[in-house]
């Protein structure tokens, strides 16, 4: 199975599993329960979140071999890899925790919103910063490419 097929299958399977799980973990979601267009739009949102979660898991599962070969520090490479996964995986818990927090009393609501905003929104801002640094290091500071010699190319082909 090719890489593209593996990614698509993993995304679809994870999304298919987490879609029904949503109703078990977060049974009361006002975006899925309303009348008129609300539940249709709510289910559209949920489908998007589940697909993003699946894509994030697929990225975690199949992206790492390329990360290990990057010409940046292993710490930055791993942080960027986790950052991309966070941008995709976080929406499913994030949106449903917002729905959950909205049901709390005023004091808990304020603290709940602050916690969610710091963890998810702040986390995504940090991920954005890490990715900006990653792209800067790879695209601006990366060493200039030296064409591989025939012997090196032969070695690469043999190794692969």
């Amino acid at each position, binding site marked *: 199975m090719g890489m593209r097929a593996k990614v698509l299958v993993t995304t679809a399977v994870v999304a298919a599993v987490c879609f029904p799980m949503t109703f078990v973990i977060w049974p009361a979601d006002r975006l899925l329960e309303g009348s008129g267009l609300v539940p249709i739009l709510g289910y559209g949102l949920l489908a998007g979140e589940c697909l*993003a979660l699946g894509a994030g898991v697929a990225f975690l599962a199949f992206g790492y071999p390329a990360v290990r070969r990057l010409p940046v520090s292993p710490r930055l490479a791993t942080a960027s890899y986790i950052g991309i996964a966070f941008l995709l995986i976080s929406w499913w818990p994030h949106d449903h925790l917002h729905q959950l927090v909205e049901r709390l009393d005023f004091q808990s609501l304020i603290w709940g919103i602050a916690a969610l905003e710091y963890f998810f929104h702040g986390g995504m*801002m940090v991920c954005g910063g890490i990715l900006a640094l990653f792209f800067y290091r790879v*695209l601006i500071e990366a060493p200039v490419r030296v064409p591989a010699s025939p012997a090196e190319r032969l070695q690469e082909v043999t190794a692969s």
Partner: protein
Amino acid sequence: MSNLSTRWKFVILATAIGTVSVPLSLLIFPPPKLPPGMVLPPAALVALIGLKLLEGAALGTGISFLVFGYAVLKRAGQPKPLTVLAYASIAWYLVNWWPHDNLHFVLGASGAIYPLLAVEYAFHQTLIAGGVILALFFYQVMRQAASRSPRSRPPLEKESI
């Protein structure tokens, strides 16, 4: 300003926009009134002000990135549509929090469901799409950079996503 390096121009523009954006957000999105008899705990106020500062910093960085960032991404040598989408996604990931969080606060307080759905679609779904684009761009850049790397590592699969 013309003698400054791009890095300094980036920082100055980001700081200026970030600084202006905090009072501007209070003007455009006035904080919702508290329920009668409720008082905001001081620690919560500090946490909310901290969020405002983060949002302002992200907005400033995003606009600076819009001004100076494309030249950097162009160096990745990826197809132009993917490069433009990645550029827009990175900027959106930084710029969106200022209107996004403020609209959540203003509309969340009203309890209306359609405005909430509009925010979810306009921000959350577009950010999810941006995440997918960035994952693809990141993967392509990784493959390209890894093939340039002198490190001896296990070979990559040949097929791209």
